[in-house]
């Protein structure tokens, strides 16, 4: 019951943040550039066209009224119309969201699947070879320009002609996308029983997902390592050892469980940053998601599309942080609400 209260209170705290997020996006899109009407009309528009847009978009109204219109539009799912293809931005983002979600989720799986074991190994063998190796690996991770890593991976793949993995996109041309259920090809193809489509999609996602995950893999490894080291030094671990409990059980059951909280925090934070990193990774690997969409929009200075993307990503990020806070409540019964 108290958990429920806590969740409700957290939801309530979200309101000012969401309000702030919409204000910030509104300020960026309506107040910072010299003339938003010019932005929407595009660089080659005539003066008359700009005036028309100013009228039709209500840009001649005072800013508070414009803000109210902006938010009411938002509630109805209206993010404006793309300059580039004249489609509602919401439709575009809806089409591209599943690909990005699939990529970021796959990256999270790699982050946790590789990062947690690496962190544990590093902590258990502290200051010995595996630990040094892991630390070098993570320094490279946090210092790596994602877009360059992607290019180098591609280069290795094609220049050396390894032929292990397919090229860009989500599927080879001779595969048709599976029936749309979740929009995630890996899940949809399994639901449909199309295993060859599944393997093709998996081969396509491997490289971009690894590239995107590397930075956060390094961060997860670091966090798991340091919190494991801290937990392993505590009294209850010594007691467990004195009681003759097997070392693997101590590490995996007692120590790891207690180091979960920082790991969950960092995963939540990373997810938002992964959405940012997706901008670069998708561009490099020709992955048809929101990130590639927004970079194409940047090249056209397609303002409504850029702002729509920014807003959606912020909303996803805020929701995930909420989810992380709720997860704490279940993970650590000691937290007082």
């Amino acid at each position, binding site marked *: 019951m108290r958990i429920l209260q806590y969740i409700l209170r957290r939801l309530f705290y979200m309101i*000012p*943040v969401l309000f*702030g*997020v919409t*204000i*910030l*996006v509104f300020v*960026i*899109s309506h107040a*910072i*550039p010299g003339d938003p009407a010019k932005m929407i009309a595009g660089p080659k528009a005539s003066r008359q066209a700009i005036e028309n847009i100013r009228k039709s978009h209500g840009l001649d109204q005072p800013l508070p009224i414009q803000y109210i219109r902006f938010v009411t539009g938002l509630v109805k799912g209206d993010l404006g119309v793309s300059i580039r293809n004249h489609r509602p931005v919401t439709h575009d983002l809806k089409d591209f969201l599943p690909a990005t979600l699939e990529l970021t989720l796959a990256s999270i799986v790699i982050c946790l699947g590789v990062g947690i074991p690496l962190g544990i190994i590093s902590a258990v063998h502290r200051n010995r070879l595996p630990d040094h190796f892991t630390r070098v690996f993570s*320094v*490279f991770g*946090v*210092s*790596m*320009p*994602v*877009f*360059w890593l992607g*290019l*180098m991976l*591609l*280069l290795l793949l*094609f*220049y050396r002609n390894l032929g292990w993995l397919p090229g860009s996109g989500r599927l080879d041309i001779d595969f048709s996308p599976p029936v749309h259920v979740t929009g995630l090809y890996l899940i949809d193809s399994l639901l449909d029983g199309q295993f060859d489509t599944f393997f093709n999609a998996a081969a396509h996602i491997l490289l971009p997902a690894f590239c995107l995950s590397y930075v956060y893999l390094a961060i997860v490894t670091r966090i798991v390592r340091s919190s494991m080291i801290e937990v392993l030094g505590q009294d209850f671990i010594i007691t467990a050892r004195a009681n003759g409990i097997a070392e693997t059980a101590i590490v995996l059951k007692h120590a790891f469980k207690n180091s979960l909280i920082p790991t969950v925090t960092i995963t939540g934070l990373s997810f*938002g*940053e992964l*959405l*940012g*990193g997706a*901008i*670069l990774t998708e*561009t*490099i690997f020709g992955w048809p998601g929101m990130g590639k969409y*927004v*970079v194409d929009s*940047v*090249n056209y*200075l397609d*303002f409504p599309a*850029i*702002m729509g*993307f*920014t807003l959606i*990503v*912020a909303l996803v*990020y*805020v929701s995930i*942080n909420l989810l992380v806070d709720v997860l704490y409540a279940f993970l650590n019964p000691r937290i007082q609400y």
Partner: protein
Amino acid sequence: MKPKTNLHPKWRELKLTGRLLRSNPTAMAGLIILVAMGLMALCAGWLAPYDPIKLSLGERLQPPGAVHWFGTDEMGRDILSRVMFGARISLRIGFVVICIAGGLGSVIGAVAGYYGGRVDNIIMRVMDVILSFPSLVLAMALAAAMGPSLNNAIMAVAFVMIPKFARLVRGEALSVKEMPFIAAARVSGARNRWIIAHHILPNCLNSVIVLGTLTLGDTILIAASLSFIGLGAQPPTPEWGAMISVGRKFLLDQWWYATFPGLFILTTVIGFNILGDALRDILDPRIRR
């Protein structure tokens, strides 16, 4: 306790930091990388074998060799020279961003922490809003709104970095303001503004330096990413991210084009990260002396 030497305490602290730094091999490695990059940036004019901007179409896309160590780009410009001048741009971006974000963020954080109450609440909620966006996404939106140029990219990245410093300094200010010497200053008639400038901020300096060093790496990465998607430095400026962006088109046949600028980004950011990590340990008063 009487000091062992009659040096001013500030100098003693600095000497101690220097000694701890020298005895830490990773810190020294980071420092050496950064000094080398800094020298390369400063002396690019003398060191670079060719003009980084001048076209030489007869020598387009030459592979690395004795004449052009890192090869040439699609305009026949020497990539080594461009990379050297690029260090100037990337380091400048990093330092300018950290000065703006660190300066503004520290003052904002100190004000929030020192005054507390409603001021603190309002300031920190605003910072929370900025932190609700992934840094690259917000920087991209801002840079796009202001128009693609290097200076706009710098301002965009600086804006995104402010909350990091504000949060850190606020936390420190909260504990510093409870110390007896603050009460003493207040009793002796110091005004709030003077206390913030002369007591709160200087006491947060160590942490700000550490965060600044660590953030410098991130800053360079974000700025390079902005240039990569076309929102930062514009051609023909020899900026590393922008070079990779063009080099991408030549990836398969002219591998050297995108490879070398990226290696330099990686090396520089590694330098800042390992130096920052080491500084964090060295400047931590709990494990000092």
